[in-house]
């Protein structure tokens, strides 16, 4: 389970790429790719294996001017989905 204490990084098979055509970030992995909305891209760019999910939430809440608990709910849900798909994983 992903929690505020988790430190995550992209899975070895996944990497981010900025797409000029759509002006969005894409998460690419074998035979597939996800076009990310700006919030999802902000979250994944911060999954560097050093920051905790909690500190990512704090950064983004400040950046967007939103309540931290609301941002946390959204970020945890998104990262859990990404972890279940094997696209992010706990940093060693």
């Amino acid at each position, binding site marked *: 389970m992903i929690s505020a204490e988790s430190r995550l990084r992209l*899975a*070895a*098979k996944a*990497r981010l*790429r900025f*797409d000029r*055509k759509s002006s969005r970030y*894409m998460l*690419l*992995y*074998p*035979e597939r*790719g996800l076009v990310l909305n700006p919030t999802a891209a902000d979250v994944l760019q911060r999954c560097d294996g050093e920051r905790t999910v909690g500190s990512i939430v704090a950064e983004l809440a400040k950046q967007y001017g939103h309540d931290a608990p609301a941002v946390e709910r959204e970020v945890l849900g998104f990262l859990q989905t990404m*972890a*279940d*798909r*094997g696209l992010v*994983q706990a940093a060693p």
Partner: protein
Amino acid sequence: MSDSERPYTLVAELTYRCPLRCVYCSNPLDYGAHGDELDTPTWLRVLREAEDLGVVQVNLTGGEPLVRDDLEALIEECRRLDLYTNLITSGVPLRRERLARFRALGLDNVQISIQDTAAAASDRIAGVKAFDRKLEVAAWVKELGFPLTLNTVLHRENLDRVEAVIALAERLGADRLELANTQYLGWALPNRAALLPSRAQLAHAREVAAAARKRLTGTMEVLFVTPDYYTDLPKACMDGWGRRFIVLSPEGRALPCHAAHTLPGLTFESVRDRPLGEIWRDSAGFRAFRGEDWMPEPCRSCDRRAIDFGGCRCQAYLLTGNAAATDPTCKLSPDHHLIETAREAAETPTLTELIYRTTKSPS
């Protein structure tokens, strides 16, 4: 063509040469009669043109891409263009030093095919001794820090061992396992009687794969691709003709799928003669089955036409002689009895000799 239609993936078939002789090879039956392979500068140009068109992923494949000695240069250019680059290989012939070079040059993922879970059965399908080397190469892939995809093509002879295939993938530390049932195109069609599984075999394997997918959530991605012959609704072949993929054949023809150049009456232009972008947008071959105007009934009025795009054109041609027919794997196709007959035959198989891939087309 709308703006949303852009190619995302370039399937770079660098060569039709391959040390393996797999009985379900998707290369065309007459691959031995095709022209000279593209040279390195042309491939480098095509990679740049593809990226400019919107391609974000490149599959370096074949035949066996390792037989090209310019693979290093191509990987380097893919990386420079920030393309996600996947090497799809049998794993032979490869030395560890070369694989390490690929890693340093920025290759993203390595996909290795394993034909079965033991040497004798695996080598029987590949037509050469390769199994032990493949396992060695798969181990190097992980040691060097690459993500590893294992691909096993399933059929009557190995479907009952799906559990063992999954265990092998776990043992090798695969990040991704493709359990891809044989599709009956290319060399698989003349081998259909030997390869098409029974319904019960398939159902069992599907259950085993589903349980493994659940158990391995977040650790290993487990994909199970059902054979078209058992889906009753056609697949969205290539995500639709000329919608998402460009396949480049070894001699430089830009194609909407691996076998489009085997369809009669269509012409596919070469990147030697015309920029890739023009071929993608304007060529007769790419336009032939793009969109819905070509569709016959029952596709034309079907509410799934934007989901499956009428299925596979090559399958339609191979089974009915008409590339513009509804894919016979669809239960609504007037030719669906062809599929039912093949399935019935698979319930009571007879001993059939395998036809191995060779440079001479089977008659």
